[in-house]
């Protein structure tokens, strides 16, 4: 399939895009020729670097997360070995603190969710009837960002010491005054990179699950695993935005010298607690929900009964997802918050336990009148439920504030959360056994599976139950009362047993993959969901025909039959297979033509650019970790870091430009359930969803500013700001931005009217105004940096005080958003010059959405930082 007739012989529309030379845009050949027929097989190494297929990405996630499980597990064994004797000497104080911090960070971030999302990546499109996720390259990008962020965390251990302030990273322990090692900054940057991976992933899954469901598969009909993942990604979208704010502020404190969290700031320590726990509480449900959904599916399949109270179960999950954002202060009962607030959060915390009660009972009652088979997946699901119940009961203790007063900072908390979270892991192990035959086409070894379960369950309880008995031991402390020695030793033995069980798991998966019995499409007697209706493993594009539930059951329609009359399927615009993945505009044929072969929307499966972007991000963040107080230190080390930043940054920019210019066809579905995004296409949905998370990001920044300002005294604030900080620059910037927004609207209008020069001119105007904004800001900042007044003899810089810190970082974040927008706009100018966007102006519309958002944010920042 050469480029010249990629459109097919029937395409007669004129295109400005120089298709003939196969190039997408910038002078020369930036766009790649169609690689699809060159997509390497599973045995080839190159395949794994370029694949964007959801099944491959899923396997990458699962395998990688198991490596991180081993790292986190080894750290746990180190901790438990230290605790064999009170005042253990295996590790010194700094090493022990790194061990507990890295153990928590790795397990929560680099193991739990990625493992769940590996399975979700594989299974969700199959369950909903889609050929892939909405944005396959972004999916691959999520993975590479994840992998490289984990590698960055590993690097941090070699830069003095990694982060040693606990996975909770409390302030001000988290600032360089108290944790000076460069590795601590690197660990924070690694987590920030991970957050980017998650955000990209959530946008992808949200768009996919809402917009790419087979006809007839309404939201209520979704499989429970899909429901749990959907709610997980919605929670992730908002929670991780708050974490990103916290991490950006912390990185800024560590690398640029701002003073948000330093002890001088009245609200600094509490600000971190609020930001972190606002993220932290939804996070624990984020890691648990996939397990819950998987357990529900496993219960159904292995009991042969449909889930009791299914609609209530879904409602309960929805309630928990929403309520998860309203309980965070139960992690702060012993801070200086007042009694009314404590009471409120006590109430909301107890409130959130009730939907969980319902879900637990629903699972239990599903067993009634069942035909239960105790195969490995069910053993783990059942066991996981037991462990979760025990953990949940102990959580009620913590919700009673007066009890929490004593449990705070003790092993009661540690035991509680390990019961619930590792209870979740138990459910995920059930999931991996359950879906293993689908993913590999082989059956796992059932005997080994049962051995795994016994070792696991015994090891688990031996490890965590004694922690309740020795609960008075303080957390993260390796000295404890001698009467607790037997309990701690039991725990240590249990830890090794549990570790052994994971080795059995990995061995089982490995040996079965190599040598197991073949599995057919559906090895489970009572499975109902769509993934079991295709071969194991499924073909590249999942289905032979188009899945549909419109008849009340799963059927597969032939490709051409499914194409007629699709315009009214959901009342929205029919998806045309154009720019579905945001690559260079591919004006493929309209779908109205019925007689097309299945090659007409030949989906792409390969791109090297996600890998490049991931690797480049790794490099640039290694470089940035060397910053101190906003600049690189002099000398060889400083030179290394500066150089690395430059190289990484350049590579990153290059990778993104290539990715944008690449011709990539994402999957499309002519007919699908699309609620509630029926009227918009995938790209626009994705953009809106992304902007929603950006709203939370800026909301957190603005909230932080308000919090600190109130703590300092709202009107006192003016003493922290030099007289030279006047309204005028802000006002000018407001006008510049508003005008630039208007210019973007003009660009859209010109594009709709096929006016190439008009589009180019308006985009140039946009960029010009945006550059003006940045120059104006630079002048303003430069002036403020060099202020010399009585109050500010050394200028008003990032590190001067909290007012300067909040001002520069918040408006700086906004300025960074402007800069990114300008880079995109520059790229678009070049493409517009070459005639793009005249047939498909959607990219301009999507850019416009982003740009208007950035302007609206400024309309909030301007009064807050210049007027009030």
């Amino acid at each position, binding site marked *: 399939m050469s480029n010249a007739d990629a459109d097919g012989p029937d395409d007669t529309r004129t295109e400005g895009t120089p298709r003939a030379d196969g190039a997408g845009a910038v002078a020369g050949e930036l766009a790649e020729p169609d690689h699809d027929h060159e997509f390497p097989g599973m045995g080839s190494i190159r395949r794994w670097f370029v694949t964007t297929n959801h099944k491959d990405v899923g396997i990458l996630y699962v395998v990688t997360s198991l490596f991180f499980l081993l790292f986190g597990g080894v750290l746990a064994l180190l901790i438990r070995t230290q605790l064999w004797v009170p005042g253990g000497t295996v590790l010194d*104080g*700094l090493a022990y*603190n790194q061990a507990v911090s890295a153990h928590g960070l790795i397990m929560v971030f680099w193991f739990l969710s990625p493992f769940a999302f590996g399975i979700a990546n594989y299974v969700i499109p199959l369950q909903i009837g889609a050929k892939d996720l909405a944005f396959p390259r972004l999916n691959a990008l999520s993975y590479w960002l994840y992998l490289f962020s984990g590698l960055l965390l590993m690097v941090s251990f070699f830069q003095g010491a990694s982060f*040693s302030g606990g996975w909770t990273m*409390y302030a*001000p*322990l988290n600032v360089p005054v*108290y944790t000076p090692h460069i590795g601590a900054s690197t660990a924070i940057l690694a987590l920030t990179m991970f957050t980017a991976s998650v955000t990209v992933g959530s946008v992808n899954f949200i768009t996919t699950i809402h917009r790419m469901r087979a006809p007839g598969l309404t939201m209520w*009909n979704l499989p429970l695993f899909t429901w749990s993942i959907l709610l997980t990604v919605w929670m992730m979208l908002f929670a991780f935005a708050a974490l990103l704010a916290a991490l950006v502020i912390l990185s800024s404190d560590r690398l640029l010298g701002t003073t948000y969290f330093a*002890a001088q700031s*009245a609200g*600094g*320590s*509490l600000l971190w607690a*609020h930001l972190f726990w606002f993220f932290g509480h939804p996070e624990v449900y984020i890691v648990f929900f996939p397990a819950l959904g998987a357990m529900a599916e496993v219960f159904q399949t292995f009991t042969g*009964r*449909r889930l*009791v*109270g299914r609609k*209530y179960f879904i409602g309960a999950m929805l309630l928990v997802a929403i309520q998860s954002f309203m309980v965070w202060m139960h992690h702060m009962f*012993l801070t*200086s*918050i007042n*009694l009314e607030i*404590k*009471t409120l959060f*006590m109430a909301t915390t107890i409130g959130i*336990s009730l939907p969980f*009660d*319902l879900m637990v*009972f629903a699972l*239990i009652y*599903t*067993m009634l009148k*069942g035909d*239960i*088979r*105790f195969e490995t997946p069910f053993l783990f699901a*059942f066991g996981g439920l037991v462990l979760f*119940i025990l953990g949940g*009961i102990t959580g009620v*203790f913590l919700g*009673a504030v*007066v009890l929490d*007063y*004593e449990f*705070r*900072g003790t092993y009661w908390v540690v035991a509680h959360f390990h019961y619930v979270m590792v209870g979740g892991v138990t459910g995920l192990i059930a999931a991996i056994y359950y879906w293993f035959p689908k993913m590999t086409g082989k059956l796992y070894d059932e005997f080994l599976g049962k051995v795994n379960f016994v070792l696991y369950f015994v090891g688990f309880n031996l490890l965590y139950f004694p922690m309740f008995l020795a609960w*008075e031991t303080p957390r*993260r402390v390796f*000295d404890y009362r001698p009467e607790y020695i037997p309990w701690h030793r039991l725990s240590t033995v249990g830890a090794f047993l549990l570790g052994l069980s994971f080795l059995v798991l990995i061995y089982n998966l490995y040996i079965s993959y190599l040598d197991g019995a073949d599995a057919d499409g559906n090895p489970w007697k*009572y*499975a*109902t969901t*769509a993934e079991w*209706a295709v071969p194991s493993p499924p073909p590249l594009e999942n289905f032979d025909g188009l899945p549909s*539930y419109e008849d*009340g*059951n*799963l059927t597969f329609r032939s490709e051409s039959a499914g194409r007629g009359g699709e315009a009214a399927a959901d009342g929205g615009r029919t998806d045309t297979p154009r720019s579905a993945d945001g690559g260079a505009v591919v004006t493929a044929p309209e779908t109205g033509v019925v007689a097309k072969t299945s090659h007409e929307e030949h989906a792409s499966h390969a791109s090297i650019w996600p890998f490049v972007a991931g690797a480049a991000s790794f490099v640039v963040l290694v470089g940035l970790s060397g910053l101190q107080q906003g600049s690189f230190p002099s000398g060889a080390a400083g030179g290394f870091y500066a150089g690395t930043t430059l190289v990484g940054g350049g590579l990153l920019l290059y990778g993104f430009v290539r990715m944008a210019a690449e011709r990539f066809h994402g999957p499309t579905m002519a007919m699908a359930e699309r609620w509630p995004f029926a009227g918009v296409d995938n790209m626009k949905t994705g953009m809106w969803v992304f902007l929603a998370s950006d709203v939370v990001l800026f909301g957190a920044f603005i909230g932080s500013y308000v919090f600190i300002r109130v703590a300092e005294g709202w009107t006192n604030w003016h003493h922290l700001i030099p007289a030279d900080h006047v309204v005028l620059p802000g006002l000018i910037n407001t006008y510049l931005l508003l005008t630039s927004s208007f210019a973007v609207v003009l660009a859209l209008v010109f594009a709709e009217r096929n006016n190439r020069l008009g589009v180019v001119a308006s985009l140039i105007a946009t960029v010009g105004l945006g550059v003006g904004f940045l120059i104006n800001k630079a002048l303003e900042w430069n002036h403020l940096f060099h202020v010399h007044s009585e109050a500010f003899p050394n200028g008003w810089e990032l590190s001067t005080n909290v007012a300067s810190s909040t001002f520069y970082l918040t408006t700086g974040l906004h300025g960074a958003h402007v800069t990114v927008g300008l880079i995109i706009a520059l790229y678009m100018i070049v493409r517009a010059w070459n005639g793009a966007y005249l047939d498909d102006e959607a990219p301009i519309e999507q850019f416009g959405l982003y740009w208007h958002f950035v302007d609206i944010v400024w309309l909030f920042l301007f009064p807050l930082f210049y007027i009030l």
Partner: protein
Amino acid sequence: MRFLHVLPLVPGHNGGGGLIPRGTRVEVFSEIYWVFLWLGALVGVVVVGYMLYVAYEYRHDGEVDDDGDRPSLGELPTGGGKGGKLFLSLGLSAVIVVSLIAWTYGTLLYVEGDSPVEGEDHLTVGVVGYQFGWTFTYPNGHNTTTLRVPEDRAVQLRVTSRDVFHNFGIPGLKVKSDAIPGQRTNTWFIADEPGEYTAKCYELCGVGHSYMQATVVVMPEAEYEAWYANTMADGANESNTSAATTPGDTTAALGGVPA
């Protein structure tokens, strides 16, 4: 000895009389803890036991399965019905959980407000945490690294930190409070048995966290008065970070405990 605390519903058994546990922090915690523990264990045993029973009862045992209504591949999900039992169980557990918490709310009010330190003759001590130890400041300005308190008298602690986030707790006396730089937290306790106790740090604060301890000595009233009389404003040591006399508490934006 512990078993006595299993009967908190016996009127007059606890300090304040009636349903709401009152008394020293140890008594209050003990009563609530043991109720929760027994109830929690009961619920756990009942629920898990029921699960095991049901799993056994409905196991696949090779006999012909005559239930024609099993799930089949490709079907659209249906409710599965039987919401009734579900809501009954949910209702029951909600009643248990909400009652438990409501019961502890009374004690929360007692601890936070209507507590022995209100308007009574109590001792106020400032506590300052630092990497890696504690200093205590008495009303007369005396600073010390050992906390000495009289028996049977309410002691109010005003806790803060001069560097990072710590947490001050005396497990033997069941009192604990965060030590936050720039903030002041308050808590109180009554010690009814003389002796030596240990105070520890319950928030990771750096390399010395595991060793951050202080000794607490509970003395009979007379002995305490004698000791205190001998101290006077011993201004020699610790710097001016006496928490008890630092003015101007900052109040967290989202509601803080006023000074």
